[in-house]
């Protein structure tokens, strides 16, 4: 619901205040972006394969784009984070413990903004105005929810909304009512981002394992050694 619009607005605003900004998004990796799009066209992409493709895409962007940018003091804005993949996995009946272990090296974001709409019907309006029609995957057609694209879309998005609502409590999302005007939402975003960005000192040690904000389970293993492409790994 307007994610790319708001990221563009935030970016312009941050840059006008002298911040360097990187914006990145799900399925935009150099490594896997194209492959994911191609894999989706034939409608034969299995649930586990889909998840691992998303994870590959994410880790590629994390290691090659986000981490270097963060180390250099950039503000990183991302269109979707690991939570979208987690939600899609959960709705497909995939064990959430498995997903979390795959993403165990993900950074804990400084803030997650959830642009929340209250019903799938609002999403339907967007589908209609965009003229794109109902996408196979956005309609959850791989789940055989019964009925046609429309029925499937409503059922699938209803389930996704439930999962996101639950995750927003579990992971401490900033929930924004996205049914409001772009201006209202943008103002809220600016206010929240300003608090985080202006006071913060650039730190080298941003890497920490992802944990749900409610539970305090210590990581049971060390995160994957992230190899900086310019550095050599010690044998």
């Amino acid at each position: 619901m307007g994610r790319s619009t708001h990221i563009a607005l935030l970016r312009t605003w941050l840059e006008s205040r002298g911040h360097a900004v990187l914006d990145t998004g799900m399925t935009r990796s150099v490594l896997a972006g194209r492959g994911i799009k191609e894999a989706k066209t034939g409608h034969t992409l299995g649930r586990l394969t889909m998840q691992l493709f998303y994870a590959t895409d994410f880790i590629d962007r994390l290691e090659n784009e986000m981490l270097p940018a963060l180390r250099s003091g950039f503000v990183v804005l991302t269109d979707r984070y690991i939570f979208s993949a987690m939600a899609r996995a959960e709705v497909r009946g995939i064990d959430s413990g498995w997903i979390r272990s795959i993403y165990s090296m993900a950074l804990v974001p400084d803030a997650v903004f959830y642009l929340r709409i209250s019903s799938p019907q609002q999403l339907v309006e967007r589908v209609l105005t965009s003229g794109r029609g109902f996408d196979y995957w956005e309609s959850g057609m791989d789940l055989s929810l019964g009925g046609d694209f429309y029925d499937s879309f409503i059922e699938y998005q209803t389930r996704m909304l439930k999962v996101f609502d639950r995750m927003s409590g579990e992971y401490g999302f900033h929930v924004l009512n996205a049914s409001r005007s772009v201006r209202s939402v943008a103002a809220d975003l600016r206010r929240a981002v300003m608090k985080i960005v202006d006071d913060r000192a650039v730190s080298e040690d941003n890497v920490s394992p992802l944990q749900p904000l409610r539970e305090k389970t210590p990581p049971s293993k060390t995160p994957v050694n992230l190899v900086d492409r310019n550095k050599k790994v010690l044998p």
Partner: protein
Amino acid sequence: MISYGQHQFPGKLFVVEGTDGSGKSTQLALLHQWLKAEGYPVFFSEWNSSPLVKDTTKRAKKRHLFTPATFSLLHATDFADRTERDIIPPLKAGAIVLADRYIYTAYARDVVRGCDRGWVRDVYSFAVKPTVAFFFRAPLDVAIDRIVSGRPSLKHYEAGMDLGWSDDPEESFKIFQGRILEEYDRMVSEFGLTVIDASRSIERQQREMRMLISPHLKRRRSRSH
């Protein structure tokens, strides 16, 4: 999601593992022929062969886009597709599935590259546990000779060039394969791999394989209906 060791299928999964040049692919091909001749429905799945993923993998290798973590994950993606489409359905139908390389290849390579051992096992936890997993253990120098002499040049990731051990691909490859072999040896007890001495004749190895496989096969001739 059903995890490694928990799947219960009527079919049988036999996999071969080992360093390149260990002769495992030859042995698997012979086994495949024999099983077909005996009248069993047999399916074959090869490492890095998913039509949905392999072009991405090829491109990434060519352009040197991988880090250890993404190398691991993209290969896991390929493996997941083959598991979902080519391995599980035939097993559910009671067929035999043969795989050339399996998750242990990933465990060896990815760990040698620096990925956390536990993390890699977590990523692949959806895999079906093989009925029998053969590890063709060839002396390292024999295996290396076979590969190096048989090919014009070693490729970047294959030689472990991304790890910076040596500027010389052949030397890097030797170090890489040596470490992979160490990981395989560790995994013999961890996963109950069946070790085959790959320095013996092709015929002897094949006889041993068939002997180890046979107890798991349902006799075709005495099916009662």
